[in-house]
């Protein structure tokens, strides 16, 4: 990469220039915007729209790489089918992605790159530039520290921004990022910027109250399939699927065909699915391999612990979304804690 050690600094206006530069370079830029009481990755044209002090968005940036619903191809019944959605998406720049989400994207990258590659995801991903943002605060539901996915990251971004109080530290993470920073004429940052960043990270680390260490969790969970915590938690679980739909590492999808009213042409669609839903494991003639709520809840958590099918690729990065958006206040870190013999 060469010059990864090269650091830059800028001010708010500089960030705005960065965004403008990306836009004029053909990127659609998305950043965390506050609406109501929540944050969302929305299209932005200025840093003024962005809340650089945000905690977490409702949906992770996953929505732009692996959208909730997308067309796989179009078909005509007379003469076969055609892949109409040639994977040539517009270039996207994700501005302000937090470390946990960066790590989640890395996992999805790995997952969708496995043979056979997923052309839809990868085409989008290749057209995506990622500008990370070190968190400025940690709330009671963040636990990336114990997952090793934050608050400090060294990969997964083209540029990483850190608010060091009197300015912004900009670290390139790729050749593309470096080039961009140079082209904007940002000044090089001195050591005091790195020190300030380090101090911020140390402060952040101290404010974590939630933890779910990875070590041995997958194996432990798999050996405790009959633990009472599964059934007890399932009594509260609404099987609403929110936890997995907001999860940055959940990737499961359903596929179905939609015919036009002429019954001659249509599209095949894929749509985000969730293993918490009854229909997910349903097969013909009413069979279902995970009919019980606790089986589904357990399967989902095993996956997040790294023990189920998704294994490494979909294990938890500690963003806290599933806890925040669970209507039943189910907290997988508590379940992990109980499996480890606590409470």
């Amino acid at each position, binding site marked *: 990469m060469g010059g990864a050690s090269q650091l830059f600094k800028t001010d708010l206006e500089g960030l705005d220039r960065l965004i403008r530069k990306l836009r004029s370079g053909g990127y659609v830029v998305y950043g965390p915007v506050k609406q109501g009481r929540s944050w969302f990755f929305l299209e932005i044209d200025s840093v003024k729209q962005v809340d650089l002090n945000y905690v977490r968005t409702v949906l992770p940036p996953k929505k732009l790489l692996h959208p909730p619903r997308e067309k796989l191809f179009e078909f005509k019944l007379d003469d076969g089918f055609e892949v109409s959605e040639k994977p040539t998406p517009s270039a996207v720049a994700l501005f302000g992605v937090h470390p946990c989400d960066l790590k989640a994207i890395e996992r999805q990258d790995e997952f969708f790159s496995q043979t056979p590659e997923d052309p839809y995801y990868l085409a989008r991903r290749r057209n995506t530039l990622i500008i990370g943002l070190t968190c400025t605060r940690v709330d009671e539901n963040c636990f990336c520290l114990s997952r090793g996915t934050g608050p400090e990251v060294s990969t997964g971004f083209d540029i990483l921004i850190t608010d060091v109080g009197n300015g912004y530290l900009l670290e390139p993470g790729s050749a593309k990022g470096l080039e961009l920073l140079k082209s904007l004429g940002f000044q090089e940052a001195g050591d005091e910027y790195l020190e300030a960043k380090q101090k911020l990270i140390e402060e952040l680390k101290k404010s974590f109250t939630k933890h779910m260490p990875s070590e041995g969790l997958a194996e432990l969970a798999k050996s405790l399939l009959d633990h009472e915590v599964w059934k007890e938690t399932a009594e509260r679980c609404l099987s609403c699927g929110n936890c997995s739909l907001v999860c940055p590492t959940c990737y499961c999808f359903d596929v*179905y065909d939609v015919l036009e009213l002429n019954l001659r042409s249509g599209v095949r669609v894929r749509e985000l699915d969730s293993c918490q839903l009854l229909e997910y494991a349903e097969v013909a003639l009413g069979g279902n*391999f995970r009919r019980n709520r606790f089986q589904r809840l357990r399967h989902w958590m095993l996956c997040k612990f790294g023990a*189920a099918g998704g294994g490494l690729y979909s294990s938890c990065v500690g963003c806290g979304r599933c806890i925040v958006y669970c209507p039943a206040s189910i907290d997988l870190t508590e379940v992990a804690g109980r499996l480890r013999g606590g409470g």
Partner: protein
Amino acid sequence: MNPYVPRIAVIESIVDETPDIKTFRLRITDGGFSFVPGQFVMVSVLGVGESAISISSHPDDAEKFIEISVRKVGNVTGSLFRLKPGDKVGVRGPFGNGWPVDKAVGKDLLIVGGGCGQGALRPLILDVLRHRDRYGRVEILYGARTPQDLMFKYEHDVWASVPQGCLLLTVDRVPPGVEWKHNVGVVTRLFEHVTVDPANSLVCICGPEIMMHFAVKGLLSMGFKGDQIYLSMERRMKCGVGKCGHCQIGGKYVCKDGPIFTYEELKLEPDKIL
């Protein structure tokens, strides 16, 4: 290559196997196709959807055609039943790992099929017939609900006449007036006639999950080891390429890591059924 886009196949002929199972012979229109016994394809009826179906013909014929044997149970399978020779379907694949044909070289084979699971086993049986010298003793056990629910009846004579082997048939019940010379009862009841040597053989099973459950139990008690028992598993499947997640059994993907697993691999997975 976009793994989600099917290739076009033309239905060349259709054989009625049983009242609810048909075998379709398909020609892939854009050429080359190869697979190993036990692999499956994703078959599309466009506008209705896609289903995982095992290939029931022999790999040597794949350049010319593949066959699939389908039981009518729902939307896609029901729609397939309405198609005629000349109609087109979509095919993706082949997917999955296949039966352990290499490991089986020189070993005895016990093949246990139930219901429409026999479709997935047929390529293996055909392989035994075509390459008889590769395998040791080969015993085929096959059970269905009634005599008329047995698939591939037209081939049973050939299967039965394989040297150093046997074909044992059984049905759950015989409707009045139907002639039946073979056994009655669940397929595991045939185990008492099995003569292959548990120490030097592999078992390949495909059938309803409940049948496989009892088969494994019986085989273990007969002295077979978990890693000698191969099972072809069925799960909901949407992509066939290890992405959609539906076919997971605990930590495994049926479409990529399977559909054929040894009992050893499965026994510790959650949602254990066996």
